């Protein structure tokens, strides 16, 4: 009986694992099967290096560069906001706050993580965009700047909670070693605690990056939607995800446009894949 249970347990977990892997390969396969046919009509060069994305014009063109830049711009913007605030929050919670304060702040940040992205989008449209128009004097509040702020706020909880986990696993012995050598709290945090938690902290940035670059609803709502290479942070952009989600509803099944949206998805997939790969290599190689 005991042996049977053991076998059953093993089988169940085994199939669960297999299922996840199958799902992954299923998704990748779909992307490539539907995406690659586009390249019969559109050259790889045009796709990667042209910024003319006119999928519905009479003279169609499928240059994804502007979309790529759109994604990159809002994601980097989001990181610029979320990295210092998220890491700062994590340091505060893990190193500075008393246990009482901690008990109040932590669930509040978890709450922030639980807000649906469409609500973030509404916040951006209804509050932030008009606020910017009034205060900065721009014509439209839907642009890189707004999208970065909204996405940034959205990924703060990801960065802060994962960084905080990493910080709080730094052994007390290391902090004591540092204090024992006459270091202040600030020196201990910046020179010992944060470097020791580096792996987890960078991991949190990568996770935040992935979340931001893949976010769809927020950018549809607040990034402005114009497929152009931006020249200022107050320009509207059209990230990859926006094109995929919005245009999929309007296109004909099996058309080049249809396939091109899968090609955009491949691009998105490759970006996140490379990012993950780099961090794995970088994090697990260098111990200093």
């Amino acid at each position: 009986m005991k042996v049977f249970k053991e076998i059953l347990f093993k089988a169940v977990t085994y199939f669960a694992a297999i299922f996840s892997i199958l799902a992954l390969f299923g998704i990748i396969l779909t992307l490539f099967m539907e995406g690659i046919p586009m390249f019969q009509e559109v050259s790889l060069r045009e796709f990667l290096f042209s910024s003319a994305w006119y999928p519905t014009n009479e003279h169609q063109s499928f240059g994804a560069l502007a979309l790529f830049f759109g994604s990159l711009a809002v994601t980097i913007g989001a990181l610029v906001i979320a990295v210092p605030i998220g890491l700062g929050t994590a340091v505060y919670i893990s190193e500075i706050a008393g246990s009482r304060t901690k008990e109040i702040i932590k669930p509040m940040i978890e709450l922030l993580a639980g807000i649906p992205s469409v609500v973030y989008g509404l916040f951006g449209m209804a509050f932030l965009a008009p606020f910017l128009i009034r205060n900065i004097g721009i014509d439209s509040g839907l642009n890189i700047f707004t999208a970065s702020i909204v996405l940034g706020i959205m990924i703060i909880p990801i960065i802060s909670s994962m960084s905080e986990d990493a910080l709080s696993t730094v052994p007390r012995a290391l902090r004591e070693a540092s204090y024992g050598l006459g270091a202040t709290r600030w020196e201990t945090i910046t020179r010992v605690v944060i470097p020791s938690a580096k792996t987890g902290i960078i991991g949190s940035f990568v996770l935040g990056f992935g979340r931001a670059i893949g976010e769809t609803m927020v950018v549809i709502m607040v990034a402005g939607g114009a497929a152009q290479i931006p020249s200022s942070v107050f320009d509207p952009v059209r990230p990859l995800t926006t094109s995929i989600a919005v245009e999929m509803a309007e296109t004909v099944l099996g058309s080049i446009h249809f396939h091109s949206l899968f090609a955009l998805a491949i691009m998105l997939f490759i970006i996140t894949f490379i990012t993950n790969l780099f961090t794995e290599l970088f994090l697990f190689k260098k111990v200093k």
Partner: protein
Amino acid sequence: MVKELIKTKNLKLWFTDNYVLHDLDFTVYEKKITALIGPSGCGKSTLLRSFNRMNDLIPECKIEGEILLEGQNIYDSKADVTDVRTKIGMVFQRPNPFPKTIYNNVAYGLQIRGEKRKSVLDDVVEKSLRDAWIWDEVKDRLHTSALSLSGGQQQRMCIARALANQPKVLLLDEPTSALDPKSTAKIEELCIDLKDKVTILIVTHNIAQAGRISDYTTFMYLGDIIEFGETKRVFTVPKDKRTEDYLTGVFG
């Protein structure tokens, strides 16, 4: 002629309601090794950690009384904690190297005080590692991770790291309890060698170790100092029955 370096006056310490150190008056003599022995939980580590204000990091801890280092109360409101910890260095039970290179571990104390000149850092790192008897083992790998050292080497590197601050006092809390006999012997000899440069206060559960290396021995029991004196005397003719029982292994 021995000189008094540290004196505690009416030192009392609580962890919340737990009265841990009971009104202790205690003297540490300069350039001697003083051993702190006693059964588990009697407050040895707590007393040791009071000398470099490590207990400040524990919110539940409350301290009364004075600890005078060369006549200056280190608990004075004007005293600078980082300065106290620079003058009174500490080595812990488990080696705790930073996940940095050997060089950066040893240079840490100077670097946080803003020393940037490479020649100064190089000199101090070398001297400290030599003083801690580990230079020859690491001189070709100063820029590799300290985590790649063996436990005994790590502990000697931690001693070097503390010595780099040129402390007056070195506090050692069971520095060999996590080490093999060979590494232990090496650290014991090292302590005796260091005695010319620095005053050593060592907590140990190993009675034989206290007998081998210390000049003075303090026996603590349940938060009180029961007996203090020259090690030879304490070990041969203890005044208190409890000291004798502890030394002969009746309890411990």
